[in-house]
């Protein structure tokens, strides 16, 4: 880029009502090089981070595209936060690249109108009021003061804007962090574990917010270790464990590819049923509520076996595994594979 502050093409001047235009309205706001709407906005290439002998991120490559919520999924300590911090220029990669809009964030001058981020606990000084926290942020990037009131109302903190952050609950602090991320109305948003500390209502609010932001054509990357939450929020998943990429795929495709279906049977005589199924070479387990789960078999086949042995059943139904189960399976497989590799080589 010859000049970072001045776009090659003037950006359209937007008035307060333009955001009602819906999907695609933000495309003109991207710097010219990322104008194609499905171009990767966030790019991670062979990213590597080592702390001494510990490898936190291990040659990770993935892309994040606009117009959808991308879930960044992994158990605690998988390297999600480290990756996000490298994307945002807080941590220096040991190797590889982490780019937003094709360039490293660390070289940006005043990026809040292009990228908004929420990192753990919002990083506001406890002695400063919510309004003043947003005020210095706005001044650093020449964002008009009127926008502060807007985002405070948006996150539901307008009534406590003058109160010091030290007295805020974790949920309120999280909302302040989100207000800070939205301050510059940026087309790219990164949220690190945004639902931490939020009550169910807050979790639903943030889910709707992120889906709304993506529907407006923005790029939204959300990290979480809560798979069930991501199943409801994310359209696309980037799954990592121990700093390595496990999957980069659509949420539904991920569940379908990784879930093992089973047939759930409710019966007053579970011992007999289990004996019958085991006799037919079918693996069974007992579900948390006492139902019998049969694996590797179709529901009609179970029904035939039940009829043949004149068992009483109350319900026979096919079930698919949850995202939680799919994820755990994937992690276990990866761990096992690594162990095999280590033993053989």
């Amino acid at each position, binding site marked *: 880029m010859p000049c970072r502050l001045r776009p090659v093409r003037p950006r359209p001047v*937007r008035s307060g009502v333009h*955001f009602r235009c819906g999907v695609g309205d933000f495309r003109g706001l991207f710097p010219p090089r990322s104008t194609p709407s499905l171009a990767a906005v966030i790019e991670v290439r062979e990213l590597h981070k080592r702390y001494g002998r510990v490898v936190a991120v291990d040659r990770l490559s993935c892309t994040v595209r606009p117009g959808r919520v991308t879930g960044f999924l992994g158990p605690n300590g998988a390297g999600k936060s480290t990756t996000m911090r490298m994307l945002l220029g807080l941590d220096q990669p040991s190797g590889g690249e982490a780019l937003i809009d094709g360039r490293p964030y660390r070289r940006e*001058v005043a990026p*809040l109108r292009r990228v908004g981020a929420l990192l753990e606990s919002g990083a506001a000084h406890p002695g400063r009021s919510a309004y003043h926290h947003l005020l*210095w*942020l706005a001044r*650093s990037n020449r964002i008009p003061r009127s926008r502060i009131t807007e985002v405070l109302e948006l996150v539901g903190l307008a009534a406590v804007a003058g109160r010091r952050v030290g007295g805020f609950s974790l949920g309120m602090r999280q909302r302040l962090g989100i207000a800070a991320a939205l301050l*510059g*109305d940026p087309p790219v948003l990164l949220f690190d574990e945004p639902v931490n500390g939020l009550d169910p209502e807050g979790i639903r609010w943030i889910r709707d917010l992120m889906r*709304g932001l993506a529907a407006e054509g923005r790029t939204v990357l959300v990290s979480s270790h809560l798979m069930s939450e991501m199943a409801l929020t994310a359209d696309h998943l980037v799954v990592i464990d121990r700093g390595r990429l496990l999957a980069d795929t659509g949420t539904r495709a991920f569940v379908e590819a990784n879930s093992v279906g089973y047939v759930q049977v409710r019966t007053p005589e579970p011992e007999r049923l289990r004996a019958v199924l085991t006799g037919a070479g079918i693996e069974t387990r007992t579900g948390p509520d006492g139902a019998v789960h049969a694996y590797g078999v179709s529901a009609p086949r179970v029904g035939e076996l039940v009829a043949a042995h004149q068992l009483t059943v109350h319900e026979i139904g096919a079930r698919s595994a949850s995202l939680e189960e799919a994820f755990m399976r994937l992690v276990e497989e990866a761990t096992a594979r690594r162990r095999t590799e280590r033993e053989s080589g």
Partner: protein
Amino acid sequence: MSGTGRNVGTSGTGMSTGTVDRADPALAEPARWRLVGPLRAVVAAELTKIVTLRSTVWTLVPALAVTVGISALVALSFRTSLPRQPADRQAAFDPLFATFYGVTLGQLAVVVFGVLVVGAEYRSGTIRASLLAVPRRGLWYAGKVLAAALPLAVVGLVTALASFAVAQPVLGPYAVPSGTDEVSAAVVGAWLHLTLLGLFALGVAALLRSSVWALAVLLPVLLLGSQGLGNIPGLRTVTQYLPDQTTWVIMHLAGPQDDPRWLRDYGPWTGVGLLALWTAAALLGGYLTLRRRDA
């Protein structure tokens, strides 16, 4: 918490995150905006931080109050005791010593200010929000230093002038003959001392990335220096170069320079230059740390 924003942000309902006027101010401005504009914005942001935090604002008040108060007390004690002193002691009396003695204690408040301005960033985690808003670390650091320098310079100047203005009437017959070069040099010296020492402390805090560690290093050194360590002959060859000691010559706090017992190895303005070097070194060390370390 107001519930007004709860369902805002869902798409298709005509609600959204609002907007920012994207008419980029950079479009209308010349190329120098590239450097000056962002820097001015960062300075404004960092000044906002200083002003909106009670702890930083209130550390500068004692700088003024303690310096002026101590100077007035010292001046008063000289005025009452000097008439009973022998003639040679009276002749050797340096009214500027009494005028700026308070700086040796008032400087501690300035040091705490300098440390807190950077240390609070690390303690609260605000450093991450700061570097998200201004990812270029050199730009952010320059803004931080300038934003701290402004209140330091103002408070330093007011303190130096007030100290002089209060101590002189208290000294009465022993006051300095006004208008001499040494007097104006001493006032300017006290001003530069307070300003530079505060920035020196800022640099040390940035180097150590912690208020606690910075104060643990700075306060003993500064207290020992002012509590007479500099008078021990053997040590003095070294301690006279401690950052807060170097400006004592220009403030007339180092003792009469025609007396070999107190003679320093450098002159008044060289001393100020030495403090400037200390400050530059600390600020540079702070910058290199900031640039290299993960935030």
